[in-house]
């Protein structure tokens, strides 16, 4: 019950924060990808299960709100959460330098994933991805430490059991 409540609260707050960032902190229509950072942080802190579930849910919500191919965000964020969980034992994600590297690589993989999905599923449309990716990367690097810091405290408030995977 507590886990479900945590899940829905986090889902709601995450969307809220993403809307806030898009509205107030975007530059050239590119802002920090809070949802990606939250999914990855969940993966590293809580494990793959929570990461991919939240990733899929946030992905679906993003897809339903946007005009991009439906399923793109769901797929990428699911994989991001899953992979982050798989690497949680190999990366000391509590250290800020590691968090910066996590933001860097996750944004690159997110950008490449988007390009691949478009390549396979979208016909005749080519969008520039390099500039948004670089800008987004900078934004994500800026917020990633705060995201990890806040998320750890948020999880502590709920006192959830650690996922052993």
């Amino acid at each position, binding site marked *: 019950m507590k886990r479900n409540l945590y899940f829905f609260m986090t889902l709601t707050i995450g*969307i809220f924060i993403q809307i806030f960032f898009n*509205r107030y902190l975007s530059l050239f229509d590119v802002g920090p990808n809070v949802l990606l950072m939250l999914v990855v942080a969940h993966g590293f802190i809580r494990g793959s299960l929570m990461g991919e579930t939240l990733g899929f849910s946030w992905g679906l919500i993003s897809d339903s709100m946007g005009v991009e*191919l*439906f*399923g*793109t965000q769901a797929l990428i964020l699911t994989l991001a*959460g899953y992979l982050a*969980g798989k690497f949680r034992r190999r990366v000391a994600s509590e250290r800020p330098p590691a968090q910066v590297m996590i933001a860097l690589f996750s944004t690159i993989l997110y950008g490449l994933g988007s390009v691949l999905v478009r390549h396979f*599923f979208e016909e005749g449309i080519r969008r520039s991805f390099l500039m948004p990716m670089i800008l987004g990367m900078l934004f994500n690097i800026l917020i990633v430490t705060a995201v990890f810091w806040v998320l750890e405290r948020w999880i502590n408030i709920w006192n959830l059991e650690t996922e052993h995977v």
Partner: protein
Amino acid sequence: MTIEFIQRNRSGVLAFVFSLISILFLTLRVDAYIIGIKTAVWFLVSPEVVYSGLFFNKLDALEGRIFKLVRAEGANYILTKENELLAKAKIERDALEAENNRLRVLLNLKKVFFPAAISAQVIGRDVREWFHVVSLNKGKADGVVFSAAVVTGMTDHPALIGRIIEVGERTSKVLLVTDEMSAVSAEVAGKGDLGLIEGQARPWVSLNYLPPASQASVGDQVITAGLGGVFPPGVPIGQVVSLSDMSDGYFKGAKIRLDASLGSLRDVLVLRREEISDSEAKP
């Protein structure tokens, strides 16, 4: 076996399922089902989006108020600066007005009492001898002569301040009546009692050697007597503030508050010799 595998690799299986669903969505993107699912998800999350929108709209309004506050602060800063400039301009205007008034009084004084007098400005004052000497910007070249009487202008009458003790080519020095070396023959106006104004190196002066039967009283005006040919008769000096017997027990003395404010002297008139004998300044 299969259930055990799933339980052991829960996250992997779930990721696979989620990915499969996502790919299915991507593949069937034009399908009516996808549109339905998209609509359903949007229906579920739309309250949050709507409330978020309402919240952020309020935040925008707050932001607007903040900008208004910032603008008001900026306007306040500009107005403060303008106010400072205006205050400075007012001070300058007041100073000019005061100077104008002084000069007007002096001009009037000159016209009425001493038409031939030389207008001069105080250009210096020895800080160690504040009640002793002031320097003027007029000298021999302007007609200033040694021992000439110097007066300043009150609103409606002149007031004695001293006499010239040094004359340079372009400047001169005035020994003020408050200097201990200064002595001016004076009389109590209306009473006819003669005495000698002597400086005390203080803001006031003493009127000494008044006759024992003097009728002088507090508040009486003291004017120059015109004896000695240095000062013209009838120039106001000051008012009696107190009376006492002198130490020799024979004469009376009085403490005189000067009419002229020697501490703020700016413009003066240096009288010419002919005016000393020809005119009599009556207050």
